């Protein structure tokens, strides 16, 4: 593993106000995400793990603190810079695929390429190749509603990596899929990471977390612990599960 930090968070805070009450979702988090890592953020429901992901990826504003992407402070970006950052540097995979419902799978995947201003020929080639690698080739002209949830999610991953981003953020990418489809999605992410793709994934599922080489536990808006693992191998899956489980319960 290279120990270069791709994302650095300093003293991150996020507070939501509801009338006179204030809810502190993230409290003074300092964190580094390293290049080439498959980082998983785990935590209970409402612990602040998703909020942390949005803040690290520039999708949400901060109440306080700083976020750096390769030493560039992204929380002070103007909208135009933020737009370019989202197009070129990051890819995002949501729990639901969030494909544009009346664009075909091909169009959804190709869209970031068009936004980036890549030549139409290149976009087409890349999108078709991604569809093939995601095993959804032949579905180019289908609309999201016409394919399975797993195929939708694989299309969403293809869209996320269309512009070869430096890092992929995935928020419960298997959360709305059945087991079989979920495994397929995790396999794709794992293969991408094996080729050097940095990934940050939020999950509460231990089986999904097993794919990571680094797990950050969030509790009540704070980093509650961190677990470093060897790179994922299917052979040692059960041991990893046990290790993570005991780490959680041991801490709990």
């Amino acid at each position, binding site marked *: 593993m290279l120990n270069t930090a791709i994302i650095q968070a300093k003293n991150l805070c996020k507070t939501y106000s509801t009338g006179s009450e204030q809810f502190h979702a993230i409290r003074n988090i300092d964190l580094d995400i390293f290049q080439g890592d498959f980082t998983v953020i785990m935590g209970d429901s409402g612990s602040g793990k998703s909020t942390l992901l949005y803040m690290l990826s520039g999708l949400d504003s901060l109440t306080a603190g700083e976020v750096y992407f390769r030493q560039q402070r992204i929380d002070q970006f103007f909208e135009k810079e*933020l737009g370019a950052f989202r197009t070129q540097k990051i890819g995002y995979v949501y729990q639901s695929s969030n494909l544009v419902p009346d664009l075909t799978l*091909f169009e959804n995947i190709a869209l970031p390429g*068009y936004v980036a201003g890549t030549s139409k020929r290149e976009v087409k080639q890349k999108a078709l190749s991604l569809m093939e690698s995601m095993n959804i080739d032949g579905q180019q002209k289908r609309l999201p509603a016409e394919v399975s949830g797993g195929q939708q999610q694989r299309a969403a991953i293809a869209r996320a990596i269309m512009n070869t981003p430096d890092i992929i953020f995935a928020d419960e990418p298997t959360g709305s899929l059945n087991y079989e489809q979920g495994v397929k999605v995790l396999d794709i992410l794992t293969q991408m990471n094996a080729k050097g793709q940095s990934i940050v994934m939020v999950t509460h599922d231990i089986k999904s977390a097993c794919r990571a080489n680094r797990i950050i536990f969030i509790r009540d808006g704070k980093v509650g612990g961190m677990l470093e693992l060897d790179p994922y191998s299917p052979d040692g899956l059960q041991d990893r599960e046990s290790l993570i489980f005991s780490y959680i319960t041991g801490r709990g």
Partner: protein
Amino acid sequence: MAAITSICLGNLRKRKVQNLLIALLILLSTLLMNTSITVIANSEDLYEDLHQETQGSHEILNLTQGLHNPQQIADWWASQEGVTASVLLPYRPLAGVTYKGEEIPNQYLYMMNTPDRPFGTDELVFAQGKETPLPAPGAVWIPTSLAYKNEIAVGDELQFKAGSTQLTLKVSAIVIDLPLGGPFSTTARIWLNDTDYGHYLGGLPGSDSYFMGIRFTDYSQHEAYWERFENYLGVPFMEERLTYEELSSFYFIMNKIIGFVMSFLGIVMILVALFTIGFTISDSILSSYTTIGIFKSLGLSSRKIIVTYILQYSLLSLVAILPGVVFSRLLSRIIIEQSLSFLKTAQTSIPIQNIGTSVSVGAGMLLVILLCVWLYASKTRPIQPMQAIRYGMSEAAYSGINKRGNRNKRRSSDFERWPVSVVIGLRNVTRNVKGSLLMLLLTTVTTAVLVFGLVLVNSISQMQKTAPLWGYDSANVVIRIVNASELDRAALERDIRADSRIVNLNWAGHAIGVVPGNRMQHSTSTTGQAQSISIPLTVVEGSMDEMGLANITGRNPQNPNEISIGINISRQLGKELGDIIELYIEGKRHSFTVTGIYQSIANMSFQARVTADVVTKLNPDDGYMNLSDVQDSDDIVRQLNDQYSSSIQAVKQQTLLDSVFKEASAVLIIPMSILGLLFLMVSWLIIYSTCRIHIRKETKPYGIYKSIGLTSNTIRGAVTWGIVGLSLIGAGLGILCGISLLPHLLRGLLSSYGIVKLPLFMNWTGISLLALLSITVAGLGCWIASRVILKTTPRILVSE
């Protein structure tokens, strides 16, 4: 009932902006519709009330040529039962009038020897000044049409030319002279007492002419009276006879145009309002589908749910219609006071009547709106609670989503052909078909209204460029002989012909032609009119072509037996090109072949043109000159007026036309501007509201676009450009409607006024700017509505 009220109030609170927009739309529709109806109804009522009050004539006889015995005629009419005839009103034509050193152009002035009042018909109404039985010595009464147009007040002095005499008389009263003092009138009767009349005008050569008014108790019987009258005369009546329609037409024409345009556009706006209400209700039903399902599951019937919508829109309508009616009466007053200002006196303003009509319009609006609401709200009837709660839509709609997807499947990717922004803009339009159609319609109508208004006002105000098509000549300079006895005509002609700047000179005068009743008419006429018809003739000594007189079909008369007739003569007599018309001129019978048919606004196309060969007593007193360079007009006019000041009056043609048509365009400017502004407002409101609804529905895709790097402004720009593109199409269609469809409809209205081809003057720069204004308003509406995109964050994509 409590449940219904509470749901209704909830709907009103929840969609404040939407409800406000609908209320505004209803208000504006009511304003437009009620204004048009009030203007049309009040114009006729005002005229007719005054006509009744002043014992207005249905016909005016103008006895100028001595072809009949005036007293014999007056006695015959006075002896008829069911007829009120005025006394004979003696007059002498005047040569001109000067006010504050400036000659008032384009006025035919008649100095009346005022008999004892009442006259019998057409009693004068005193608008300003003290009412006295007769004008005081050295003073005159002048009509409102002359006074108001030239801002002459009581106490002012006017200089009149009568032959070689210059009379200076003081204005002691301004009177409403209903038959000859209407809008656009070029005639004015000046009232002088008998002593002054004899003193100042007694020495003039020639004899008095006479006006005489005839009022029928039952106007529908007037033809029978005329048949008896001509039987009594033994010959057709051969002097000038002005009918009720001719006398009243100019009081109505502008308000009919305004009323027509307003009522047509009022209907369009009501349709737009109904469409918008339907669109809003449909949208509200779709977005509250689950809630409606829950209400139904709790036992609320479909009827009660429909009643909630009816109650909601009843409240909105009431709030909007009442001020709409009130404002429309204010607006109607402004329009009517401007167009019928000559009926206004210093003591009383013009009363706006027909409150009952306004109430009916308001009630009608409410009824139509509620009917529309009931129709659209009935869409809640088939809602099944289980389906609504499970799918948020009907099961059929839910399964229809995939079908819709299949239809789209065949198209190739837009992104491969167009930039991302263009595709987003395009999709914003194509995914909202109903809304887009509404916006297209709005920009079309708004542009059409603006363009039509501009074209109309411009065509009238710049009519010197299309004068022949309005029935006027196109000569550069006109000279009018005002004192023939002092004029050395040969010298004048010699001087003019010697001037190298003047290309040609033609003379014209006036005569009356009489078409005998069907007993004497031997032609192919199918009209079979029982009585004779008196036709004002323009008699030309020279070339009508050189004068610039034009026909809408055929050519100008060149030979003594040829005639060109106005379109309304053609209609009344059923004569076409090549037909024969028999006319009595100066008591002699002539046969003419129709060589041309023309239109003329001045006399409702009820006139004809012949050559001077057939008129023996013609005094052609109007000379029409064309110049090699129009820039010389001012010099030539000044020179002629200096040289022949006591006998002629030279005027530029533009001055003559301006004096009439600046008045018309001024009357039109306010209502057309108000219409334009109203439609711009409505256009903005609806585009804003439609875009707002649609953009809110599309928040998720916009969130996705943002998450892949598009900025808010890029998305807003794309959406706005889509609407700008749509409004560009609308503006194009609007220009077509504004220069073609609306003038075509107006032509239908003006046809009865003798205008069948509307001579339009296109100002393409103005038209383009107005189209651009319409597009800008649409774009602005969308841009402001798209502010919601600023607040859209990709976080909405997250499933919590």
